[in-house]
């Protein structure tokens, strides 16, 4: 199975680990991430203004390229997923945006939201299946207590993202369970890490991340996992406490993909 893949800017720089581990895990699980040619940055934030068009075009390009290949579009970074999923929803449901975006794009065939946008976790849940994943785990992470950190962008707005219950999500917990570890549920797993505010207001982000980590630790988590490089950065910047890693790193570990393998 091949998916069109939108890595996004961060996964080519400071978030390389996420990209690399995800591709390796995908191969081990029998699917392939085919990077979209000449993808452009999603812009990082979804422009809420109803009159914004230009800022949505890079997403439309990626979506259309997947459509032309007849593939679903897979993302990893929460921000990219959020932006592309919402732009796709606009293209599907908002006449004005669809018309104007297509006017800019001048495609052979207008794009109208045909592509399905999947987060890597959704591929694991809905396509691979957590039961299958569990069966493929060769190195179960027995006894490890792991907290899921979702952040905002994967979950909200719940109706459009349709990722999971935005106030009480379970997908990463189910993922953790599939890897043989024990998920730790704590209430702040869907609260904001501070996002881009950490550029200018480092203390604010730190105190928000502190609360998240303390809560998880209080419930017995020994580690947090996340899908977002920015969350990972912010959470780790709040020094001390439990470590924060990408979910794909744990996935590789549980699938028995060794350091040597990963070095490829």
């Amino acid at each position, binding site marked *: 199975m091949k998916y069109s893949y939108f890595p996004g800017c961060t996964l080519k720089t400071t978030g390389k680990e996420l990209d690399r581990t995800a591709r390796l895990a995908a191969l081990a699980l029998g699917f392939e991430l085919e990077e979209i040619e000449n993808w452009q940055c999603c812009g990082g934030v979804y422009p809420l203004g109803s009159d914004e068009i230009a800022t949505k075009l890079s997403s439309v390009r990626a979506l259309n390229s997947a459509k032309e290949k007849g593939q679903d579009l897979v993302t990893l970074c929460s921000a990219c997923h959020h932006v592309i999923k919402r732009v796709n929803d606009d293209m599907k449901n908002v006449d004005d945006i669809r018309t104007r975006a297509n006017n800019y794009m001048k495609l052979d065939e207008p794009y109208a939201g045909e592509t399905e946008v999947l987060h890597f976790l959704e591929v694991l849940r809905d396509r691979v299946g957590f039961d299958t994943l569990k069966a493929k785990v060769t190195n179960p992470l027995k006894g490890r207590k792991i907290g899921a950190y979702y952040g905002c962008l994967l979950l909200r707005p719940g109706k459009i993202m349709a990722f999971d*219950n935005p*106030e*009480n999500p379970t997908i990463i917990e189910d993922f953790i369970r599939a890897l043989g570890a024990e998920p730790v*549920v704590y*209430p*702040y797993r869907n*609260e904001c890490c501070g996002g881009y505010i950490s550029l200018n207001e480092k203390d604010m982000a730190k105190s928000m991340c502190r609360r998240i980590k303390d*809560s998880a630790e*209080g*419930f017995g988590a020994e580690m947090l996992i996340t899908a977002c490089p920015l969350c990972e950065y912010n959470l780790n910047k709040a020094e001390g406490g439990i470590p924060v890693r990408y979910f794909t790193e744990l996935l590789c570990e549980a699938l028995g993909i060794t350091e040597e393998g990963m070095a490829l």
Partner: protein
Amino acid sequence: MQRIGVFVCHCGSNIAATVDVKKVVEIVKNEPGVVHAEDYQYMCSEAGQALIAKAIAEKNLTGIVVCSCSPRMHEATFRKAAERAGLNPYMVEIANIREHCSWIHKNIEEATEKAVILARAAIAKVNLNAPLKAGESRVTKRALVIGGGIAGIQTALDIADAGYEVDIVEKTPSIGGRMSQLDKTFPTLDCSACILTPKMVEAAAHEKITIYTYSEVEKVSGFVGDFTVDIRKKARSVDMDKCTGCGVCQEKCPSKKTPSEFNRGLGNRSAIYTPFAQAIPNVPVIDRDACLKFKTGKCGVCAKVCQAGAIDYEQKDEIVTEKYGAIVVATGFDTIKLDNYDEYAYNQSKDVITSLELERVMNAAGPTKGHLERLSDGKHPKEIVFIQCVGSRCSDDRGKPYCSKICCMYTAKHAMLIRDKYPDVNVTVFYIDVRTPGKNFDEFYRRAVEDYGVNYIKGQVGKVAPQPDGSLLVQGVDLLDNKQILKKADMVVLATAIEPDPSVRKIATMLTASIDTNNFLTESHAKLRPVESPTAGVFLSGVCQGPKDIPETVAQAGAAAVKAIGLLAKDKLLTNPCTAKPDELLCNGCSACANVCPYGAITYEVKLINDHGIREERRVAQVNNALCQGCGACTVTCPSGAMDLQGFSNRQIIAEVDAICR
């Protein structure tokens, strides 16, 4: 040729402010058939009706058109007035120039033009009207009440006391409804059971009342005065006549792990059970999904211990068919599911409960024997936070757009009772508005604040976060202080929105009673006919019509009873004369009309027909006017155009179309 009078109503300024009524009168005077036209301030008033009568007599009118409010409002009024003046009531047509014209248009010229067109359509129709005579149908002097809560019980008692037979159909094993689950009631703090139980006993003992518990309405046919209803008596697996209600079976039943519906799942019950100690009838039922005998074939303990030999595993569902003249719906409410409100951690913490669950916790017969304790660890709470409007007043699709009406008052009650019994417990209420319209209601709420020291904070709660130490961190806002608040609580109580009991949808469909977007049954008129459904013979009692507290429910239950009694007191009802009528010369006996008739009103007869001199026997359609409800399905289906509807004939409707498109 008809002699038509047109009467244009000002309706005070309701019509006259946007429609130039004088101009309407001037224009319609020239319509074909019109021999008289006038306007008046209030046509529906006695003076207005007298004008109509006078014109009928003086001008020899054969038909009249009243340009006024909706026919749903005053068609009957004007028909009666015409009848009194010697005109056949079905020679009256209404042009709706208020709801469909003056109230929705602002431009006088435009509204006047439309009023004229609507009047023309009505005039064109009256030109083709023919006198109709209503038939008669008999009234079965028995009422059905669907739902055995306080609304249903009160309605049944009132109807029975007037001397009519009443059947109550209740789907759970006991009557009593939501009220039986409550601990105390506002604003007087009466014990709910103490005032409800006597009523339950009275209903059970009443010679005119038959109670079907653990039963559901399965099918309804017929119409006002003559409904036929199938009631499914679900297999109780216990013989009602033999059971003595000793309760030994429940004690000995080995399957005791089923969440108790009566205790909102906070405690367990046995597989053979009565929902609560004061249940009526005091005869248990076997929950076959939970019973070991039914699941595995092994067990049979209850049958062994029953001295009376009342246990009957072979019992089957039974259908009872009964005829009724009137039906009262009293299906009540439930609280909404909170799956859309996980920010309040209802599904994540046992110590976040709904107010109805708190009623059970506070009740001496409840899962904690009336001790206020945390359901997670049984500890006595020190801080309790109440959150108002959970799922009420939501215009997104997570909750309900309406105010549930009872929450402000029961929360004040809970807060007061807790502070009274446990002065060491702090109580905080997060509210958006405190709504206390009602006798002694605001005083009651103020007492909670002033005498009991309940801390009311204006603002909502954004998140309830369970903490590692088992407490709950409530993140809310104090809008008056403009501060975000973090409050550590031991328990959180959610004032959960109420919604009509889900069973009402099916019942409304069976009764063809209309229902609104929130599944509340629609009343015939919001102000003037609040307990009557638009479907004749169907009345509404309690929360099935809209959120209500107990006193309002009881009042409405009585009102519904009076309306039902008013119907049952009649021996005969006039039927709708606007029924289908076949033209026997055109009918080819194909049966198409009979196939679409929802009432089985059409039969066939072989008759001698004289078709322009040709006499032959033909199979032709016959309409039973007592059964025909006048929907008109047959008229359109008929391939030869033989079937027409009196009062809404093809020619009449086409005349209206023509007048509008002129």
